[in-house]
């Protein structure tokens, strides 16, 4: 929706017509300007009259506002309009409407006089405004109470509620912001002149300074979030309802106001209890440190200095919260009635102070963590680990924290690194110590005569430059996706995958050219087969795996779908494992070549780089094997009817398969197994409802093929994750997030152990099974987000005796 202020034009025709209003005390005539497109919001001059005795009806002369052009004529068409609609005139269901106005648009309309929709609706006897007087003197305890409540609402806003339901319900904030002050001295809890006896006292001045800094902080938050390439409406409400949050005023103005307030409170002439005095000062200091940390102008190098000082003040605020006394009247939902609003009214959000402080602490901790990004080694794989780990933090980082990190990530200092970030990534997998990336290739100049073929080494450089250029956008898209909220991350990854799919097709051609050049130079054995496509493929498969794992994490799959989705995950990870295997082999070949040529240093370098690739290989191996083991146990659980399985009268297996595979169906090379193959994998013993008798024979024998395959997969998974753990975070290019990486790796190992327990439980339960008998166990699926899973995306069933 366009900014409504654009519709205003306060210099044009003003009409002075008579409107009648009535209220509880009797009716009065008021004369106002209502040429509706021409009124400066809430400031249009209007004339009310009231006789000194109890507002009897009075007619008063109108003051004509200056006019330009012809004044609109006002016609009362009530009677004829009504006649045209009603009676026998219009048919039931007949609409007289603008042909360009669709019913679809109409669903967004707010219904006036419906209390659920109309934010301006007053219940009978309800007044428009509260009679709370923001100039009434405050007790020191009340000052603390108001500050703490403001902080609670600020945090509620951070979690996604609009300002209209949170901070803008404060009468104090409302007074500071409306009517819009032209200068900071004008931003008071009153406007214009005021008699000395009404002038706010010290504590109100202190509250004002606190509120001003709070509002400026909101402005900074909005600026940071809007500065991102991409943010989601569902995450955060940037709407300020036509209020301007001191956008133009620099930070030092607010810091000065806070400093002055600290001085006033410190002043011994102010009679106030010592504990309360320091509680107020702590809140002012908190506000100051927090505002400094939010300052978007803060230079990258010193960002990390700003978050640690906030924390001790938060603790002090927490410790002294009970000193405060709430002032309920100072917050009112009625303020919504004056805010430009195209949405239904919503109640004030209820937030517990403790929850708000937790949110605040989390915000500070996440932002402080984000500042560590700038200390990472210039390595895109370290960046990716950091982004993924940050996005996986629990509780999920708030929109502001995610924006904060992306603002660091997209800082020119990071993006304009001296090395090409995508190329560094490619190099780590397929081009270590490779002649393709030999710097001398970039030093060659093309032959003067364009008819003479370019030297092959120059072609290496040109081919690589061109390809890296093409990779740029999809590469950044992956990073952008990693900065979204968890739900969107999964959806966005499916789009990013499509772009990488095209990159992979491009890579096939570039690889052919690279190999041709290598052949000309007689160094074919020094260049890996299909290097670029191998690299893209590894990245693309990783993303597909993540989409599936995120699906488990978000409870997208129903229990009887688990076997199919873990089967598919295992297939993807197996393919990635194969591609990584080729990288490892190439690396080994290169080492041997260097040794043969007595290039010992190069041999050592190449061999050193093996750790990263092998760690990736072990990771893929672990995922592939563990997913396979889970697929196995869920398949058995399905046959044993231990999973809820709806009868689904409107669906078929094939339709559900198609729905699940939708995002991957068009990928090249084809990643999705054909339906028949998929179904055969999930039903190795025939249909679930009528399995082959051999199922029971196999289940009874703990060393049958079905069980030994599961056992072997689990063992392979354990071994692989243990190897990953031995490599450690740094070798795996996750050194910047070592702690979280260790935790995740440990979580995978713990999941393996839990699955081992489940397998043993199930084996035991079926050791005497007959087709006619059931089993005396049930399967429990640990719920998401309840700390019942070692790693959220890996759902290890629990076998519980009945």
């Amino acid at each position: 929706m366009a900014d409504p202020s654009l519709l205003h034009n306060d210099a044009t025709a003003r009409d002075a017509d008579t409107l009648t209003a009535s209220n509880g005390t009797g009716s009065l005539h008021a004369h106002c300007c209502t040429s509706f497109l021409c009124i400066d919001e809430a400031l249009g001059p209007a004339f009310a009259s009231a006789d000194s005795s109890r507002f009897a009806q009075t007619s008063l002369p109108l003051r004509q506002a200056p006019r330009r052009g012809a004044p609109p004529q006002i016609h009362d068409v009530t009677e004829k309009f009504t006649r045209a609609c009603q009676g026998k005139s219009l048919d039931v269901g007949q609409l007289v409407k603008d042909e360009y106005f669709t019913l679809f648009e109409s669903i967004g309309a707010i219904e006036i006089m419906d209390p659920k929709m109309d934010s301006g609706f007053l219940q009978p006897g309800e007044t428009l405004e509260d009679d709370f007087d923001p100039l009434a003197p405050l007790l020191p305890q009340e000052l603390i109470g108001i500050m703490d409540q403001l902080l609670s609402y600020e945090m509620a806003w951070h979690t996604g509620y609009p300002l209209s339901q949170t901070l803008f319900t404060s009468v104090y904030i409302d007074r500071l912001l409306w009517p819009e002050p032209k200068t900071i001295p004008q931003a008071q809890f009153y406007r214009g002149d005021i008699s000395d006896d009404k002038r706010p006292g010290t504590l109100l001045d202190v509250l004002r300074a606190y509120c001003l800094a709070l509002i400026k902080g909101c402005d900074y938050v909005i600026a940071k979030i809007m500065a991102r390439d991409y943010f989601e409406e569902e995450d955060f409400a940037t709407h300020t309802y036509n209020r301007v949050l001191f956008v133009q005023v620099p930070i030092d103005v607010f810091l000065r106001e806070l400093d002055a307030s600290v001085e006033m409170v410190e002043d011994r002439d102010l009679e106030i209890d010592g504990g309360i005095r320091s509680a107020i000062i702590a809140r002012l200091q908190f506000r100051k440190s927090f505002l400094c940390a939010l300052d978007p102008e803060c230079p990258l190098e010193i960002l990390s200095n700003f978050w640690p000082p906030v924390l001790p003040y938060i603790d002090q605020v927490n410790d002294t919260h009970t000193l405060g006394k709430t002032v309920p009247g100072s917050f009112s939902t009625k303020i919504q009635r004056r805010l430009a609003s195209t949405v239904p009214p919503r109640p004030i959000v209820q937030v517990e102070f403790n929850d708000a402080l937790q949110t605040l602490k989390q915000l500070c901790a996440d932002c402080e963590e984000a500042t560590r990004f700038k200390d990472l080694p210039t390595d895109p794989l370290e960046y990716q680990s950091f982004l993924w780990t940050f996005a996986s933090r629990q509780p999920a980082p708030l929109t502001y924290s995610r924006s904060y990190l992306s603002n660091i990530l997209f800082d020119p200092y990071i993006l304009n690194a001296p090395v090409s970030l995508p190329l560094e990534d490619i190099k780590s997998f397929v081009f270590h110590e490779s002649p393709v990336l030999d710097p001398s290739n970039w030093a060659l100049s093309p032959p003067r005569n364009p008819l003479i073929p370019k030297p092959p080494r120059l072609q290496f450089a040109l081919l690589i430059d061109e390809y890296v250029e093409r990779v740029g956008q999809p590469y950044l898209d992956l990073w952008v996706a990693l900065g979204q909220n968890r739900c969107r991350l999964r959806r966005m990854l499916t789009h990013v995958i499509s772009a990488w799919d095209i990159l992979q097709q491009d890579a096939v051609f570039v690889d052919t050219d690279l190999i041709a050049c290598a052949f000309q130079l007689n160094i074919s054995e020094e260049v890996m087969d299909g290097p670029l496509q191998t690299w893209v493929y590894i990245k693309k498969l990783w993303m597909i795996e993540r989409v599936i794992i995120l699906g488990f994490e978000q409870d997208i799959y129903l229990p009887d779908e688990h076997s199919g989705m873990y089967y598919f995950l295992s297939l993807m990870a197996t393919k990635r494992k194969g591609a990584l295997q080729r990288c490892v082999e190439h690396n080994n070949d290169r080492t041997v070549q260097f040794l043969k040529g007595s290039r010992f240093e190069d041999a050592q370098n190449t061999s050193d780089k093996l750790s990263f690739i092998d760690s990736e290989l072990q990771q893929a191996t672990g995922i592939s094997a563990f997913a396979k083991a889970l697929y196995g146990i869920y398949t058995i659980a399905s046959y044993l009817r231990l999973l809820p399985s709806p009868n689904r009268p409107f669906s078929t297996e094939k339709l559900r398969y198609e729905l699940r595979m939708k995002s991957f169906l068009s990928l090249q090379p084809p990643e999705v197994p054909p339906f028949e193959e998929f179904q055969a994998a999930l039903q190795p013993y025939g249909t679930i409802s009528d399995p082959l008798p051999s199922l029971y024979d196999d289940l009874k024998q703990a060393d049958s093929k079905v069980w030994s395959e599961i056992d072997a997969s689990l063992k392979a998974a354990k071994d692989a994750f243990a190897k990953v753990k031995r490599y450690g975070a740094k070798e795996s290019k996750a050194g910047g997030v070592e702690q979280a990486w260790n935790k995740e790796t440990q979580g995978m190992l713990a999941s393996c152990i839990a699955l081992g327990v489940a397998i043993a439980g199930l084996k035991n339960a079926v050791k005497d099974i007959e087709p006619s008998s059931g089993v005396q166990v049930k399967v429990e699926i640990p719920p998401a987000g309840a700390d019942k899973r070692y790693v959220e995306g890996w759902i290890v069933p629990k076998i519980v005796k009945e």
Partner: protein
Amino acid sequence: MDNTEATAYLSQFIGQPLRIHTSDGRVFGGQMKCTDKDRNIILALTYEYRAPSADVIRKAVQESGNPSAPVNWNSRYVGLVVIPGTHVTKIEFEDSTLSGQPGRVVV
């Protein structure tokens, strides 16, 4: 009025500025988009106007000593609204075309 006549009459107001007064004393100014048999009216680009409360007027009068002291009406943007026919107390058409101008709405 028969259906053809009624439709023609109401169609004239489509896209035109209307002010709708509601049973609670508010006024909504916006462009008419749609109406029906029940006189439910959809207005687009709408502003809500509300008379100042008696308290506010009393204060203004007290403070200025002037019994016809100017007091602001409250107005705000509310966008696209439906005003149910049962709450419509008055419909005004804001005509800014000159008399005799072609295309003029016949009120």
